[in-house]
């Protein structure tokens, strides 16, 4: 409960108008910018996905020529990864971390402004590339050389955009690390931090470690394209496979950059609605860290069919299978948290449970893929598309929905419309599975991914997937409507809308004041950020 003393502090000034957003240094404003930006990119990336699915509704070429089709796939992947999911997690971290650990703001408020404002130009470059001669990059989001060396100037714009995105996410990550390490309120030890803070911290380290690797890979492509180097050209002494090693040394941890924050969110939501403490908090911390470490050792499982020697295949196979252990521990811990709880099923909880269920499917198909001898049949097929959408849509995206519904009252001071939220969940759950489950069968049956047209035996499942995709897409409008409506007309939220929530952010008034914790609160905390007692902690 906010103390009386805090209420008497002078009202700090709150900027207004355009300047409030352009020059934003307040973590909540920047967080909101990130979230809105990410959501709009989610819609853009979603429209691209629907273009793909429209083309694949029937065999034959209906709407797009193959070269444009490849551009759509590439940009869908790049925009979803770098424009939607990653910024959304950064935005959420921006909004919630200071509130959850008792910090006045993010550590570097001005850098925070920069890291956000780099995103719109980067994404504009990507979208602009559609209209330059030759069109956008068309080598898939993995941008494999030598194909990417062949492409037109859209590829150069993409490389430039990736450089900017890299700078942005590294700055965002540094901010998260420093905030968590330095600005925790007295009384919150690292081993008491909320799991969301832990997950954000480990993710931030991964970002700092691998974004430069990606920048290196695409820079090598750039110099191969224009400056006569031959990194990836065998005729000049280079090696095309080198690109894949460098790319996946970034790319595999990147997958976890999109998964670990989700683990953090779910670890806050499940205990709240089960009205029980998180089961196995410290093993959660260790599991998350070991997933982070292991993620650096398994990159070549994306390359089983490039012709690695058997010993290398075996090493990467074993290492990959090993990741299933800490991941399994996390899933079991969440279920143990629900076990013997007193559960209620508001929208955030629904999305969190949906996350666990579907992420488990994605994880188990990952185990199948990790077995190199079986991957021979599945690599580069729709099975992989199914697998990673179970992880990315049902993992990253569902957890983000869970988070937005969960913290919406604290952020805005209003309740979302529960019935719409529930509708959004059930709708998404149903159509998500209709879209992506059949893709497992397509892959097993032999349909390669990234093709604009397919053999007739793949027709039925493609039809089903396309219908599912359009319905899924439509369902996201429910979310948008709910948010827009509730922002203005939602019921006023109490300070503590969730009976079982007991982390620090719920001790602040609702909506969270523009400046919170201008004096650090004196805390006594338990595991997972549970606040036992709090003194002071002024906010205005």
């Amino acid at each position, binding site marked *: 409960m906010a103390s009386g003393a805090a209420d008497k502090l002078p009202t700090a000034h709150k900027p207004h108008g355009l300047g409030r957003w352009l020059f934003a240094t307040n973590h909540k404003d920047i967080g909101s910018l990130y979230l809105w930006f990410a959501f709009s990119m989610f819609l853009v990336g979603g429209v691209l996905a629907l273009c793909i699915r429209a083309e694949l509704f029937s065999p034959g070429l209906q709407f797009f020529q*193959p070269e444009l089709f490849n551009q759509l796939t590439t940009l869908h992947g790049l925009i979803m990864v770098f424009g939607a999911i990653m910024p959304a997690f950064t935005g959420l971290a921006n909004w919630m971390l200071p509130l959850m650990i008792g910090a006045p703001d993010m550590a570097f408020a001005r850098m925070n402004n920069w890291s956000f404002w780099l995103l719109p130009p980067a994404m504009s470059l990507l979208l602009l590339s559609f209209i330059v001669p030759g069109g956008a990059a068309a080598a898939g989001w993995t941008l*494999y050389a030598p194909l990417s060396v*062949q492409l037109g100037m859209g590829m150069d714009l993409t490389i430039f955009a990736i450089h900017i995105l890299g700078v942005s996410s590294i700055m965002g990550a540094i901010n998260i690390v420093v905030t968590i390490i330095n600005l925790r309120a007295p009384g919150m030890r690292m081993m008491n931090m909320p799991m969301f803070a832990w997950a954000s911290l480990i993710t931030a380290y991964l970002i700092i470690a691998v974004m430069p690797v990606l920048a290196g890979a695409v820079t090598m492509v750039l110099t191969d394209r224009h400056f006569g180097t031959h990194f990836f050209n065998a005729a000049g002494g280079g090696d095309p496979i080198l690109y894949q090693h460098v790319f996946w040394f970034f790319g595999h941890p990147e997958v976890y950059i999109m998964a670990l924050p989700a683990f953090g969110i779910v670890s806050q939501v499940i205990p709240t609605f089960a009205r029980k403490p998180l089961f196995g908090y410290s093993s959660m911390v260790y599991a998350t860290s070991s997933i982070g470490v292991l993620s650096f050792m398994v990159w070549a499982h994306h390359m089983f069919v490039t012709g690695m020697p*058997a010993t290398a295949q075996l090493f990467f196979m074993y290492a990959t299978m090993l990741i299933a252990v800490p991941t399994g521990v996390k899933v079991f811990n969440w*279920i143990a948290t629900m076990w013997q709880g007193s559960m209620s099923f508001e929208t955030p909880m629904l999305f969190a449970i949906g996350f666990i269920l579907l992420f488990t499917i994605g994880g188990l198909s990952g*185990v199948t893929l990790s077995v*190199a001898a079986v991957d021979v049949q599945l690599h580069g097929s729709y099975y992989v598309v199914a697998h990673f959408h179970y992880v990315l849509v049902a993992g990253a995206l569902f957890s983000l929905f869970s988070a937005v519904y969960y913290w919406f009252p604290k952020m805005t001071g209003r309740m979302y419309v529960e019935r719409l939220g529930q509708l959004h969940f059930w709708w998404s759950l149903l159509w998500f599975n209709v879209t992506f489950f059949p893709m497992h069968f397509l892959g097993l049956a032999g349909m390669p991914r990234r093709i604009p047209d397919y053999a007739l*035996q793949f*027709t039925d499942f493609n039809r089903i997937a396309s219908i599912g995709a359009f319905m899924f897409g439509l369902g996201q409008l429910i979310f948008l409507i709910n948010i827009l409506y509730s922002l203005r007309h939602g019921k006023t939220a109490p300070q503590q809308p969730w009976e079982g929530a007991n982390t620090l952010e719920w001790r602040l008034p609702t909506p969270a004041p523009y400046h919170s914790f201008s004096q650090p609160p004196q805390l006594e905390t338990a595991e997972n950020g549970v606040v036992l007692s709090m003194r002071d902690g002024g906010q205005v």
Partner: protein
Amino acid sequence: MSCPRLCGSSAAWLILNSTAVHGQSAALNLQAPATSLARMEYDLHTMLLLVTGAIFLLVLAVMLYAIVRHRKSVGHEAKPFHENTTVEIIWTVLPLLILLAIAWPATRAVLNQKSTHGEDMTIRITGYQWKWRYDYLDDNFGFVSHLATPRAAMAATAVRPEHYLLEVDEPLVLPTGRKVRLLLTANDVIHSWWVPQLGIKQDAIPGFLRDAWFMVDKPGIYRGQCSELCGKDHGFMPIVVDARSPEDYARWRTARLQQLAASADDPSKVWSLAALRERGEKVYGQNCLPCHQASGKGIPGNFPALDGSPIVNGDKAAHIRIVFHGSQRNPAMQAWGKQLSDTEIAAVITYERNAWGNNTGQLVQPAEIRAVRGGSG
């Protein structure tokens, strides 16, 4: 899905097939294996499916039980326990043991896939944008295999043949019961040679040789596709393997070698314009059309137009140079000198100089190409 038909398999796993609107079946599992490798992969996948399926059902069951019984709305009180070392150890060790049990057969399978020695014959496979070249190294001949589905069938309205997109003009013909070693490489970008029923997928990488092997059980036609994004026609790079009994294969091979000897082009023959143009149109259709299009208009921004192009209508030597050596600026324009014979290059250049709106009336004889080839060493 109508008329379900159940088929057993080696691992007693069932594939559900359904006869769909198109008379094509939609399978729910890997394609029926036709080699020992594919069977091994199939069985391993079945095992994984059963194990992971069981784990999923277990997780689902426990979760559903908790959801149904431990609800606030049924008055369940939360029991605030939050650790239990014993169960945590169990659910760390148990998955480890399961993984070990999987790793054993998986390791054997990997080693088996990789044992390419002791072959009976060797085929070199080269990926090109967007076709496959097969070289029978033991017999010193080879050919290029192109998509045989006509482009018109891709139009939304066309009636499609049964093996739409999965048919080629020249399949890879092989004997059954022989260990075939494949050497894979590529000419331009990375492609991947995937025939599901044979249990093979292997990337073909420019500048490097990779190997793989298989031995086909039964005569039959086995179809696959390129499975690495390799540019705009990645979806149109089918693979067809025509496996025949050793006797049939021997007959095919003899006939093929004879036919090759008979039809070999004499590079010193002098051709008429009409004959060259006609031959050139075929070469164009197989090699140049995907980028420069049947209309010669190219794809603006990606591939230049030949119709009205200054190179095509200008100096012959420059035209020969770019076709023979490829383009410096855009590597998508390959060095065709390495892929086509003198006669073919002469024919296609002649065709281009006299097709669409181009009316140079000039022809290029194979001897002129031979001179370039000689000069380029």
